[in-house]
């Protein structure tokens, strides 16, 4: 798997060939594209944890969806305002940009080192599947000692793109995939994986 160069990323962004077209919208400035990656900005929606409502998160549990909704909450931080991330706090954010990958590309999201040096860790689940369409959910954790201010539309992450060779594995070929067309950070849908019925000993699946 080769990493796409700046020239190839730009070619993919502006090509009229729909099979090869890479969409990152809005790409405010071409300077977001650098050697081997594209800078992505922080969106305005976040999912925060309600610390007083901690609960056991057991993906095999039947009412896990309600449990997740009980202890997490979606909030919106308007453009030109900020969100404070406390030390050791985990929140879910998303990229401002909506991404659509062609079927021959996949990507990894990584943090920008300048944020990492402040203690901000970005995207612990980084794989972006070929054919994916939507914003990218970012898991943001402050591992530093001081509070960090996060501003919507600030450049926060980088998308590294790879070419996939051999076979087709488009994300959108499945009916309504779990996170397809996401427009903001999404609550975990881990419980929708088939294996939990087996792992939890559900007799219907045996």
């Amino acid at each position, binding site marked *: 798997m080769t990493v796409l160069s700046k020239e190839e990323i730009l070619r993919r962004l*502006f090509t009229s060939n729909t099979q090869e077209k890479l*969409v990152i*919208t*809005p*790409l*405010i*400035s071409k300077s977001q594209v650098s050697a081997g990656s594209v800078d992505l900005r922080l969106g*305005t929606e976040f999912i925060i944890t309600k610390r007083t409502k901690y609960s056991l998160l057991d993906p095999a549990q039947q009412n896990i969806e309600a449990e997740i909704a009980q202890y997490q909450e979606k*909030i*919106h931080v*308007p*453009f*030109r305002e900020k969100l404070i991330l406390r030390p050791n706090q985990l929140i879910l954010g998303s990229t*401002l940009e*909506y991404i*659509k990958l062609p079927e021959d590309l996949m990507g990894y999201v990584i943090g920008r080192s300048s944020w990492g040096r402040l203690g901000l860790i970005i995207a612990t689940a980084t794989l972006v599947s070929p054919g994916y*369409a939507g*914003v990218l959910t970012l898991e943001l954790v402050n591992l530093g000692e001081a509070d960090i201010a996060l501003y*919507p*539309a600030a450049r926060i992450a980088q998308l590294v793109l790879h070419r996939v060779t051999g076979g087709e594995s488009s994300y*959108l*070929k*499945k*009916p*309504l995939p779990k996170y*397809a*067309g996401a*427009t*903001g950070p999404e609550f975990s849908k881990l419980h929708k994986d088939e294996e939990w019925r087996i792992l939890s000993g559900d007799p219907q699946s045996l």
Partner: protein
Amino acid sequence: MLETKSSEILVEKFLDLEELLRRIELGVFPRPTQRRAVKSLFSLVWNLRSSLESLPPSSSTKALVEKGYELLQAICGLIEKIERSNVHYTSLGAVYLAEYLTGKAGEEAVPIICFQSYTSSHSRLSDILKLAAPLLPPESRELKEEVLFFTLPYFLRNDPLSHCLVARELALHMIESKRLLEETLTGEGSSNKLLIIAADRLASLMVGPAYLFTLTNFDASLASDVKERIRNIAALLADEGYYEEELLSGSLPPLEELRSSTGIERLHEIEESFRKTAAYYPPEVFECEVPQLVSRLLELLPPNEVTLPDKATRPAEIPSIINAGWIVKQRYMPTFCNILKVQDPEGKYQAKKKLAALIEKAIELSIIHKSLLEAEI
């Protein structure tokens, strides 16, 4: 004696309102506007209470207490609207749309959107202040910031395409505040009809066919008066250059002539001057942007930007985004469902939700994109 008792009860009720306002101020709102409106109302309530407390026993007390009760009711109505405009009840897409339209119309008033009841309406903070004037000292009769409250039907909260009902309420506010039809509105029945038609037509000039689609969808029963309004809007849009057959899928009765010819002439004058303002959404912009935005939606992309001939992109206009959403909803929903590989009713419902989410996302992206370009980041 009875008046004094009644005045004391009223003072207690105003104290309750002060406490309520302190609590509401702690809510989570999409904009700081709500907090400023709460502060204005708090100051008004405080002044009213002070006036009531110092009322001398006289024959005029009864009338002032009655006025106080009238104000209590009106203030409660506004407090409820502020409370229902917090992030849990409102829609961000609607907030952006209201800000966009009021900004384009050059309105100094800041909008607050809430979803409540079954119909749409609008009101102003200054209306309360006018009502309260007899009970206020002269220095407290000035308003720091005018707030325009838009109320949209509760069941439309998650339907960003129908939020263009805001355009109609804004049009009504403009007609009232600028007294555009003052000399024309005479008889009770016909003047009300003329006002409705004027608001419909100005709303259509602000957001294009999206307003017609909204009205058609909103009142699917198509009662005869709604049919007449729809026919009227379609006629205006056809005159604007939109293809009439495309706008009217069903057969509707021919446009009934307005009773007042003076009225229709005045409407044409108002429309003509409105076309010269920034609030006008010209059909040329629709033609240039909407087809591209429809194509984007059919590729599961938010319709937030348009590509120029040199392949550069620019943010799309908000009315274009909403029009594109309506066109997909009206004509291409089966295609959109096919893209998401859904066929069953639950899947189709989820597809409609995806479409709504893409529209809301596009509205936000377009606004942030414009702001960043203006700041040259």
